C-alpha cells in the first residue's frame, strides 16, 4: 500500500473507532450540558422571566420553530440529532487522524523506523495542546446562549492560536536548539498577547456553574479523544504501512 492510501485508510479506521467512542462519552458528558444551556437560551428568546423551570424548559427545547436559526434545516431532537453528532464526530476524528498519520508517515519515513502506539499517544497529546488547550485559553469552550464576539473573528483567532502553537511546539521539540526553542516559545505566547476577540459586556442567563462544568467536560473529553486518536491511528498506520515499498528499510 502506498503512503497516501495507508494514511487515508488508517485515518478512516481510527476515525470510526474513536469517533464512535467519543460520541458515547459526549452523550453523557458534554451534550446534557448543551441541552440544559439551550433551555436558558430559548427562555431568553421567549422573553420569559429570567430562569425557566425545568418543565417549561423541556417544552421549549422541542419547539425549534422559535429558535433563531429556524429558517435553516436542523436535525430533530433525539435520535436524528445524535446521529448527526456521531457522524460529525467520526468525520472530525478522520480529519484529525489524517494529520497525525501524515506526521507518522513523515517521521517513520525519515527515521526508517516505526511509530509505536505509545509515541502515537504523545503526538495525540500534542494535538490536544494545539487544537484544544491553546485556542481554549483565549476562547474557552462555550455553551449555547452565551453571547460572544463575531464568529469569523473568533475563528480567525482560533486558527491563529492553533497554527502558532503547532509551529512553536515543532520548533521546541523537533529542532532542539536554544534559538529555535526561544522562537517557539514566543510563537506559542504570541496569540495570547494579541488576545482573543471578546465582547466588552456579556449578559447571559446561563449559570456560571454550568459554563464551568462545560469547560471541564470538554477539556477532559478532548484529552481522551486525542490520546485515543494518537494511539489507535499510529497502531493502524504502522500495520497498513508495514508492506509499503516506499519504506522498506534501505
Amino acid at each position: 500500500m502506498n503512503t497516501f492510501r495507508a494514511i487515508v485508510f488508517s485515518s478512516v479506521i481510527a476515525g470510526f473507532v474513536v469517533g464512535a467512542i467519543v460520541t458515547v462519552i459526549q452523550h453523557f458528558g458534554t451534550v446534557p450540558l448543551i441541552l440544559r444551556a439551550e433551555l436558558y437560551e430559548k427562555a431568553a428568546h421567549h422573553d420569559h422571566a429570567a430562569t425557566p423551570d425545568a418543565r417549561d424548559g423541556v417544552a421549549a427545547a422541542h419547539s425549534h420553530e422559535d429558535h433563531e436559526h429556524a429558517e435553516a434545516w436542523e436535525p430533530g431532537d433525539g435520535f436524528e440529532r445524535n446521529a448527526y453528532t456521531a457522524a460529525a464526530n467520526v468525520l472530525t476524528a478522520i480529519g484529525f487522524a489524517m494529520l497525525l498519520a501524515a506526521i507518522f508517515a513523515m517521521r517513520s519515513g525519515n527515521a526508517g523506523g516505526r511509530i509505536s502506539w505509545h509515541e502515537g499517544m504523545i503526538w495525540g497529546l500534542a494535538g490536544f495542546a494545539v487544537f484544544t488547550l491553546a485556542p481554549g485559553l483565549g476562547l474557552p469552550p462555550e455553551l449555547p446562549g452565551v453571547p460572544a464576539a463575531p464568529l469569523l473573528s473568533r475563528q480567525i483567532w482560533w486558527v491563529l492560536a492553533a497554527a502558532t502553537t503547532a509551529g512553536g511546539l515543532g520548533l521546541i521539540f523537533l529542532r532542539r536548539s536554544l534559538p529555535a526553542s526561544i522562537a517557539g516559545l514566543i510563537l506559542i505566547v504570541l496569540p495570547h498577547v494579541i488576545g482573543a476577540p471578546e465582547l466588552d459586556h456579556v449578559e447571559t442567563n446561563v449559570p456560571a456553574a454550568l459554563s464551568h462544568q462545560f469547560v471541564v467536560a470538554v477539556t477532559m473529553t478532548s484529552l481522551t479523544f486525542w490520546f485515543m486518536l494518537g494511539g489507535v491511528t499510529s497502531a493502524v498506520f504502522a500495520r497498513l504501512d508495514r508492506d509499503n515499498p516506499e519504506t522498506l528499510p534501505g
Partner: protein
Amino acid sequence: MAHTEATHLPVTASRVSRLPQSLMAMMLGLFIVGFVGFSHIDVVHNAAHDVRHSNAFPCH
C-alpha cells in the same frame, strides 16, 4: 531477510515521494475538519452543532 542491491535503488527513489503524499493527506484532513467545524453554511452548522460546542470550535 537479506536485501539485495536491486531493492535499494527504487526504495531511495520512492522515499522522496513520501513527503508530498503526507502533505496532501494533511491538507485533506484539514479540509475535512474545517468543513465540519468551521463552515458558515447554516445546515452544516446545525448538523454538527453539538460537536462544534463539544470540541470548543467557535460556534453561533
